[in-house]
């Protein structure tokens, strides 16, 4: 069965510092991995995805994520956090080999960037 874990409910980081939001996954086939961000009263906005190829993927707003197959992780990173990055972040996985197209989401991590 597919599953996603985001072990931290909240991450606090000072503005200008690097940030990491953690995600681990479990799928039986090839993982297609996604990060979304949700601002208050807004929908889920796509940030980036890993399908295949280079393990480091770059996305919107300066975010990047590193796919690690051996650790089944897909952590979201940004070299220098902004106060405006404060939001709720969701990791999602789709099992690329199973014929299903549904996303399985993690529980979300609230990122708070302190000025």
């Amino acid at each position, binding site marked *: 069965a597919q599953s996603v874990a985001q072990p931290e409910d909240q991450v606090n980081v000072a503005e200008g510092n690097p940030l990491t939001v953690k995600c681990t996954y479990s799928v039986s086939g090839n993982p297609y991995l996604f990060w979304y961000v949700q601002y208050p009263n807004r929908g889920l906005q796509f940030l980036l995805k890993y399908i295949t190829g280079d393990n480091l993927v770059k996305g919107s707003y300066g975010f990047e994520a590193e796919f690690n197959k051996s650790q089944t992780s897909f952590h979201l990173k940004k070299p220098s956090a902004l106060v405006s990055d404060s939001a709720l972040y969701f990791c999602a996985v789709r099992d690329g080999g199973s014929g299903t*197209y549904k996303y399985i989401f993690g529980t979300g991590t609230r990122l708070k960037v302190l000025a």
Partner: protein
Amino acid sequence: EPEVTQTPSHQVTQMGQEVILRCVPISNHLYFYWYRQILGQKVEFLVSFYNNEISEKSEIFDDQFSVERPDGSNFTLKIRSTKLEDSAMYFCASSVVQGAYEQYFGPGTRLTVT
């Protein structure tokens, strides 16, 4: 930039009533989805829809739920007889095709069943 839109933003209904949640997917997208998020819980898949047919549904999507694309732009989710536990945020999403393409989500409709 094109966006998925949803109406209404908030719907309050009494238990046992029917509700229809509306979505306008991005215009060149062919695959449509509904997800829901009960307060404080995960975003959960409900159903996917393509070529006027349900292509996949979860165990949550029982006979009380139905989806429809009544015209070339709208995509609706109907709950026939709402229950208290249907209270949640419902997200519509669309994608160009399936496969490796990401899904784009709307802002959600908050459904409150009293």
